[in-house]
């Protein structure tokens, strides 16, 4: 979850008359988890579906609503203008087809505002921009640009001075030698051409989605901004723009439109949308009995507009609330505006009778029997390593099932057997007193046409006098007591077991597992100094009655 750092003093200025405590008490009820607090600073986690909460401006708008200071939908006041034309060349259509943007004038930019804009930009890129692939944003100093602009393509030898550089660099150099180029260059694919925004003096404004030109850098001296968003989908680019426009307006800028033409592009409208919902759905879903007027005032506290129209409540949703899909989202907005803390939990009697899964019951019985015999229950991960599963035990690793890109070397392979894990446990307990007798019942995975899952049951006994007879007695008694089952053992060999001390376990002549004395070399691998005996069987449908 993304995190944003806020200052209580700044929030108080943005919200109006409100105490620090009111703010910190209300943040969680806006869906913002306080991660840490340090005097005036507070770090909060916000949900990725609310990119407007990536700045204190957006959070201030939400808190104003929740605290009843300012309610209702935020309307964007955009001065329609043709002073800022952008034309689109059709060559971009196969690379990054859409551009959109807005002008924001007469703002007072300070360092903390720049910091908020930067985190907003980063979070928008990461979240709804899908690491800049879907859409990306550039914020520029308007006064360093001369309109009209052209969104077009250029080749990789093209040079300009990018952000944080003092001399011109070629596109191919940016792609191969800079951090941003290396990280995001792949978005542009293998095309020989890349998108570029040029102004009327042929000066580069931006090389989306990688980097801006140095000349348009925003500083604390900047008064007027130009924001451009490029992307692979028109609606997504406009969604991102709507968040930025709302934030800039709250930050004190006056918005003015750009005029976009060419190659299926057009001027963004950033229009509100209308969705209706019934009081019935809201009350039924929340378990409340709210009057329409209360629902309307709750929706307004969630910074939406609402009015009743017959049985329907008609809601007006600002463009930046593209997380709202339909009526059910309005139920949640009502709940938030009403206040989650005002919802009293209610336990209604169950109409159904509960039941433990019969397989769970059978497995629990089996573990009780093993405990009766004196075996301690162990639990190991199903995702383990090649070392534990195969190398330490000499087992055949032909049908290995591995996961991709695991962050942990100890967890890369799905187990096809439980016994290796139990043996590994012994090596971690060599200083504990013996006898050590453990068992585990768990899922194992086998690869045939696809992956299949089975429940296996394995036990080991390690002590000075451990021998084949002991472990066969244990398994025989456990299966007899548990399932009324008779087993036979037939000589076999197995890489993990000592030759001549190892047998296949047969149920009605059908092999169900392996039993024996663990090979002394394997015991040595684990640095264990006592004999170890063990077994493993598959608890298939011929044993468990409930499968």
């Amino acid at each position, binding site marked *: 979850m993304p995190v944003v750092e806020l200052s209580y003093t700044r929030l108080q200025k943005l919200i109006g008359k409100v105490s620090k405590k009111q703010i910190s008490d209300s943040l969680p009820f806006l869906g913002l988890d306080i991660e840490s607090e340090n005097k005036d600073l507070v770090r909060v986690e916000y949900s990725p579906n609310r990119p407007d909460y990536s700045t204190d401006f957006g959070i201030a708008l939400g808190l104003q609503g929740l605290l009843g200071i300012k309610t209702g939908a935020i309307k964007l006041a955009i001065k329609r203008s043709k002073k800022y034309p952008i034309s689109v060349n059709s060559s971009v259509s196969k690379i990054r087809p859409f551009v959109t943007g807005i002008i924001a004038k007469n703002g007072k930019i300070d360092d903390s505002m720049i910091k908020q804009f930067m985190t907003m930009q980063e979070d928008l890129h990461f979240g709804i921009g899908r690491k800049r692939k879907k859409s990306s944003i550039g914020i520029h100093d308007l006064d360093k640009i001369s309109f009209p602009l052209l969104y077009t393509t250029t080749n990789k030898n093209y040079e300009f001075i990018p952000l944080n550089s003092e001399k011109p660099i070629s596109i191919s150099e940016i792609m191969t030698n800079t951090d941003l180029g290396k990280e995001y260059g792949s978005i542009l694919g293998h095309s020989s051409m890349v998108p570029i925004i040029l102004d009327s003096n042929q000066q580069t404004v931006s090389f989306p989605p990688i980097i801006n030109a140095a000349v348009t850098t925003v500083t604390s001296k900047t008064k007027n901004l130009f924001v451009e968003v490029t992307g692979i989908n028109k609606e997504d680019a406009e969604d991102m723009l709507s968040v930025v426009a709302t934030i800039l307006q709250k930050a004190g800028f006056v918005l003015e439109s750009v005029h976009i033409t060419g190659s299926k592009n057009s001027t963004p409208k950033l229009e509100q949308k209308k969705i209706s919902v019934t009081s019935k759905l809201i009350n039924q879903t929340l378990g409340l009995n709210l009057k329409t007027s209360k629902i309307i005032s709750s929706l307004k506290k969630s910074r939406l507009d609402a009015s009743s129209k017959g049985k329907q409540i008609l809601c007006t949703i600002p463009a930046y609330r593209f997380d709202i899909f339909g009526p059910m989202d309005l139920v949640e907005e009502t709940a938030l505006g009403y206040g989650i*803390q005002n919802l009293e939990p209610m336990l209604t009697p169950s109409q159904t009778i509960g039941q433990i*899964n019969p397989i769970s019951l059978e497995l629990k019985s089996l573990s009780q029997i093993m405990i009766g015999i004196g075996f301690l229950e162990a639990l190991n991960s199903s995702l383990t390593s090649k070392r534990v599963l195969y190398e330490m035990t000499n087992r055949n690793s032909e049908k290995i099932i591995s996961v991709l890109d695991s962050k942990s070397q100890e967890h890369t392979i799905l187990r096809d057997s439980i016994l290796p894990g139990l043996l590994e446990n012994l090596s971690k307990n060599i200083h504990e007193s013996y006898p050590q007798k453990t068992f585990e019942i768990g899922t194992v995975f086998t690869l045939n046409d696809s992956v299949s899952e089975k429940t296996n049951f394995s036990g080991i006994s390690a002590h000075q006098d451990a021998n084949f007879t002991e472990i066969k007695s244990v398994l025989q008694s456990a299966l007899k007591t548990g399932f009324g089952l008779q087993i036979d053992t037939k000589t076999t060999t197995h890489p993990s077991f000592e030759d001549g001390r190892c047998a296949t376990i047969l149920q009605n002549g059908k092999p169900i597992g392996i039993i024996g004395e663990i090979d002394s070399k394997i015991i040595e691998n684990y640095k264990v100094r006592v004999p170890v005996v063990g077994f493993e069987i598959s608890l298939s449908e011929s044993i468990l009655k409930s499968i």
Partner: protein
Amino acid sequence: MSQVFHEIEKKIISSLKNKPNQTSESLEKSTKLSSDQIRRGIEWLKLKNLAIVKESTTSVICLGKNGLESLEKELPERRLLNLLKNKPKKLSDLQKELGFVFGPAMGLARKNNWVEISSDKISLKNSPSSLPGEKTLKFIGNNKLSADKIDQNDLSLLLKRPDFITEEITKIKEISLTESAKSTVLSDSSGAIDVEAKVPEIFVARTHPLKDTLDEIREIFVTLGFSEIIGNMTQSSFWNFDALFTPQDHPARELQDTFYLDAIKSKKFASSEQIRTVSESHKKNWRYNWDINEAKKTVLRTHTTCVTIKHLAEKKPDEARIFSLGRVFRNEKVSYKHLVEFNQIEGIVVGKDANLRNLMGIQREFYKRIGITKIKFWPTFFPYTEPSLQTMVYNERLGKWIELFGMGIFRPEVTKPLGITKPVLAWGGGIERIAMLKYGLDDVREFYNNNLNWLRSVSKCQ
């Protein structure tokens, strides 16, 4: 209060009362106990502060190889004098008769003027009745003696000669009673044993503590009217993500968060109708090109919700309380806070009147039954529920609020495509976190370490 003693202890104490400072060997004789019983008895008495064991060393003297030979055949110089008693003899004859000892014997005899050498003959000059060392040799004989009992002058002469005398240092353990033991009264209460004594520990076989927590939680939901369903840990991305309205380019679906099985595609995971309706919901709401190949990728389930949604899509019940409990996986770096594999419970309520307050009520009841009463609900976000809440519970030991189960009502974008018409309340969360609170653990890895020291010591009823 008279102490209760073991029979062994009684015998040792009374023997020591009669004769203080005894060795174990002497105690064996006086008590007629075996050496092992004496050893144990002394250990017990030492633990009770009733006996003291003092160790000391003494040195003893006995004859060495040459000393013993001389004891049998007389000293070499005596043998020489005896041979010369009747008449002088040739040097070569004497050498033949005395062998190795001729040299040292001859040396001593000449030095002390006992013999005379003329041309090749050796004759007796005078013969003393007692030779130096002779007396001491006979005194020691075959015995081991303390050095202070022997004539020191004589002994020093023998000590100079090779292998005549050996010195043995022996350790002696002497056992005596402490002052408090001397005044103990040995009662005769028959059959009484030392009920205050320490006894050996038995390591009890038991279920795993985490299993106990799982069973406890399972029982609670069953009593609340829920039935358990089980499902596979390997799932198609379709049921783990697509059916739950998680777009295919969502960050949670990336390799760095989710485990994908290498080159294993799921087959026949859903009906063509299900695939059509789910993909349409994605295309319409998330505006992208939904790809069946993404849905086919096999994942290790990231939540048990895939099991419940599959069950719902299949049975389409109008009324149901169902839960699923099992392992889920996240591609995380393992730490004291995070595991790659952990247990999750996930439950649902289906019913035409199911609502958010009911959902909160079930949560409150569940927490009450595991002993947590201080709870609150906060809004949160999940891609597949709306509205969505999370429970925060207060932990006294840590002194802070902790996030536990998440919950919500399945979005229409999830239920409608699968033909589920009634509202579905859903909640879920990790079990290890609850178990950590229960067992007071700060490191979640302990549950899977199978560390016998912990498993043998943690109490079952908490």
